[in-house]
């Protein structure tokens, strides 16, 4: 029964990149890997999932009324599917973080959050204290492993797979006590922050929503996704889904450009795995320069437009 089940994440029509990253973690655990797609219309998503290298089978479970986004609706079904698995994984995104502890508690087992390395089938590394310490943790060998995968720590699994797709209807009734109302997204045309190879982020220094325009212009010139510090989100310059850090998104782009961001520990937690960090800040003592690969001291309102123009 040493087998891994991954709960696929999607937006209702497309597979989320976090699923392919979870697949890489599962492959390192070493057992056969099945995937389950819960969706109101699962077929196209399942077809995408079946193409991930290393997946044995993809199960589709058809839900209604967007219950596929509600932990309370999915958890009982995952519990009944889990009977055949030693490992149950989901990405450590807001979807997986909301869902998997509910599953673990119903199974009466602990959850390992934010798996960043696999040391054995029951032994993993994970960050604590905003990434200031890395712990090696294990659960008993006879216990089911329920874990969320820190997506910034794993590359996406390759394509080219051709797993079998099967419809399933696991037992477990969705409760009526929780109802999905809707999602207000920022529906941006820009590359997705969590998977973009390049990301440009702005901080409190931008001082207004209008000024943030220079960040978008630079990002568009680079073909980059756009992020922000908590201070910029709290001040209302940008929506919450752009926050990078301990309590926002943990990302690992090849290039990260931090503009007018001081480099608080909670922000740095979100970018530790970036390839190259560039910092632009008028304060030469800002902590961001301690981790930046390339630093430039100066006023962002002069530097950013000049940079955009010279790149364009």
């Amino acid at each position: 029964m040493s087998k891994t089940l991954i709960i696929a994440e999607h937006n209702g029509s497309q597979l989320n990149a976090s699923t392919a990253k979870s697949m890489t973690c599962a492959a390192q655990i070493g057992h056969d890997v099945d995937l389950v797609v819960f969706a109101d219309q699962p077929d196209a998503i399942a077809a995408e999932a079946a193409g991930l290298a290393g997946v044995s089978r993809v199960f589709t479970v058809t839900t209604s009324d967007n219950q596929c986004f509600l932990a309370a609706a999915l958890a009982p079904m995952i519990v009944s599917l889990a009977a055949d698995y030693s490992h149950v994984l989901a990405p450590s995104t807001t979807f997986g973080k909301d869902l998997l502890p509910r599953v673990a508690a119903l199974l009466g087992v602990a959850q390992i959050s934010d798996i960043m390395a696999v040391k054995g089938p029951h032994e993993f590394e994970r960050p604590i204290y905003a990434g200031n310490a890395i712990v090696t943790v294990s659960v008993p060998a006879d216990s089911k492993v329920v874990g969320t995968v820190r997506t910034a720590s794993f590359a996406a699994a390759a394509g080219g797979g051709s797993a079998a797709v099967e419809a399933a209807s696991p037992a477990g009734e969705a409760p009526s006590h929780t109802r999905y109302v809707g999602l207000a997204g920022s529906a941006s045309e820009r590359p997705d922050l969590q998977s973009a190879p390049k990301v440009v982020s702005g901080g409190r220094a931008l001082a207004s929503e209008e000024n943030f325009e220079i960040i978008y212009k630079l990002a568009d010139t680079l073909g980059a996704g756009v992020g922000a510090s908590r201070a910029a989100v709290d001040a209302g310059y940008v929506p919450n889904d752009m926050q990078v850090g301990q309590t926002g998104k943990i990302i690992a782009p090849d290039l990260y450009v931090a503009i007018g961001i001081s480099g608080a520990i909670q922000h740095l937690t979100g970018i530790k795995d970036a390839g190259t960090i560039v910092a632009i800040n008028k304060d030469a003592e800002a902590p961001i320069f301690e981790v930046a690969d390339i630093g430039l001291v100066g006023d962002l309102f002069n530097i950013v437009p000049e940079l955009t123009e010279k790149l364009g």
Partner: protein
Amino acid sequence: MKILVGLKRVIDYNVRVQVKPDGSGVVTDGVKMSINPFDEIALEEALRIKEAGHAEEVIVASIGPSAAQQQLRTGLAMGADRAVLVVADEEVQPLTAARVFHKLAEKEGPGLVILGKQAIDDDSSQTGQMVAALWDRPQATFASKLELNGQTATVTREVDAGLETIEVDLPAVVTTDLRLNEPRFVKLPDIMKAKKKPLDEMPLADLGVESGNFISTSAYAPPAQRQRGVMVEDVDGLLTALKEKGLI
């Protein structure tokens, strides 16, 4: 309606936490301890609900060492009505904490249990969801807005794709995100008044909950450090450096 709020005692968020040289844990001696920031937000929300006339009593609870009395006293000074300290000298993992909150929820019968979305020490982000599962009630995690309408609540949740709205029947478990509110400051007279408010202590063993501490930790290590890189003089210098790395 009663509201039950979790207050975890954690190392203050301003402290740069360090791993002990022998890898046996993190340095805690002489380090400032505080209420987990998300739990202050949880308490603030509960107090606002009470002040708006939708709740009669706010109970704060902590599971941890006797010293967590300090954090509970601060919670009472902020305005909570009474406190419960479940004394545990060893580490309390999320499943154990969830079983305790479930027990307290059954005993107190709250309409809302409000916890933080994560404790900034273990960064687990599990307890609220686990309480909801054990209690067989709705969960509304990562809340940035909470509206009560009689027997239901409408909750806006901060999710990766934006802001999601769900509706839940009460009783329910809510976990707080940073933008739910800004917690009030404690005033000196309130600290004096708080001393008279009830704070019940009970050993974890007396609650009769099964331990959920299944995770064992074999090593603590500092994270890989990034090296300080080069400083460039101007935009042209930056462009040259980026070209050298093949990034543009």
